[in-house]
């Protein structure tokens, strides 16, 4: 009796493992375009349906971002690109802290904008991609009634855990490029620690100078 039950458990565990594995493979093979679409629509559906988000509850907005949006971004790569040549000059410990602070800054910025979403629709442009590509740009446009469409492009790279975005280009303005000049200037005047301090102060709510 016990023997049979144990066998039953074992085969159930095997089925679960296979199912999980298939899901993981499916996720890894999901095209970058499909990923952007799935995540965008999931986030939009969530914020539209959630009364707390609509009311501007920052804790809830951040929770939605943390669980649904941010796992699809490669913040270490984003930070490295924004740092440019200064990245190699930073110690691994500084690199980690820079990544954390930069991530916090971006989350703070965009959680303030997320509940402004109203009746915009997103158009996903067809992606031209060769089978072996590991770096692509997914193009979208946000259309809102009574306004010009805003182009939002995502630079994405393939990683072992699926495609991850490492830059967002809004209406031709690259997030990474915009920060590169700001980071450079901070490092030029105060070194990597100066930049870290500015980022940390900013994240603790100090206004921009």
């Amino acid at each position, binding site marked *: 009796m016990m023997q049979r039950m144990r066998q039953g458990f074992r085969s159930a565990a095997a089925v679960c493992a296979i199912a999980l594995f298939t899901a993981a493979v499916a996720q890894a093979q999901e095209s970058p375009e499909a990923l952007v679409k799935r995540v965008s629509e999931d986030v939009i559906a969530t914020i539209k349906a959630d009364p707390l988000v609509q009311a501007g509850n920052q804790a809830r907005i951040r929770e939605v971002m943390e669980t649904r949006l941010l796992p699809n971004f490669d913040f270490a790569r984003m930070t490295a690109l924004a740092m*440019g*040549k200064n990245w190699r000059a930073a110690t691994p410990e500084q690199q980690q802290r820079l990544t954390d602070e930069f991530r916090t*800054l*971006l989350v*703070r*910025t965009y959680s*303030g*904008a997320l509940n*402004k979403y109203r009746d915009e629709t997103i158009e996903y442009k067809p992606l031209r991609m060769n089978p072996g590509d590991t770096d692509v740009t997914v193009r979208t446009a946000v*259309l809102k*009634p*009574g*306004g*010009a*469409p805003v*182009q939002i492009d995502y630079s994405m790279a393939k990683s072992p855990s699926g495609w991850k975005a490492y830059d967002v280009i809004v*209406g*031709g*303005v*690259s997030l990474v*490029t*915009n920060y590169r*000049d*700001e*980071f450079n*200037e*901070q490092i*030029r*005047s105060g070194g990597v620690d100066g930049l870290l301090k*500015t*980022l940390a102060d*900013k994240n603790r709510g100090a*206004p*921009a*100078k």
Partner: protein
Amino acid sequence: MKRRRALAARIVGAVALAALAGCAAAPSKDDPFEPMNRALFGVHEVTDQYVMKPAIDAYTAVVPRLVRTGVSNFFNNLDDLYSGINALLQGKPDKAGNDFGRVMLNSFVMGGIFDLASDIGIERGSEDFGQTFGAWGMPQGPYLFVPIFGPTTVRDGAGWGVRIYASLIGFIPDVPVRNSLYGIGAVDIRAQATDAISIADTASLDKYRFIRNAYLQRRRYLLYDGQPPPEKDDE
């Protein structure tokens, strides 16, 4: 009187601070007048806070959203006309046709206060005289920050000069009507930019630099119709 003096003191303070910050910064090839621009940016920030922002808050509080959209559409319709003219000047007849089609359709329906063209999928163009001058080979010139008006360059400023000189509103003989339209136009532009400005407040380490970089990137993108060649890296 007291309030005015307080405002003046704030402006002087902001200018002094901005000028100091400007001296400390490394010169950028696009922004040789950075110290002056930073001073003007300081003036802008104070006037924006004490004059423009209260006006926008009143405007958005008093005027219903539907009417504000109508106002935006009215001015956008004028912009579309100039976008079409500039598309022609740059030898892009397809884009011009698109813009003129929008203007005809939208003007025909209630004088441009509804954007029917967008509803049926004719997207707005974004050509202007600054881009036309760029397409004709005029260099961008130094970056300039003009209080209330915002970021620009010598080339884009020249474009705005032509735009204002050739503006349809300029032909309105009734001065109060004309000036009211200019005023409402300015309020409309600032109201539409409110979300972008609040992002710059939280996102930037140095707001002046953040706005300058975003402006120059955006203009480059528009000049190349959304396909800018990769920028040579200084790294």
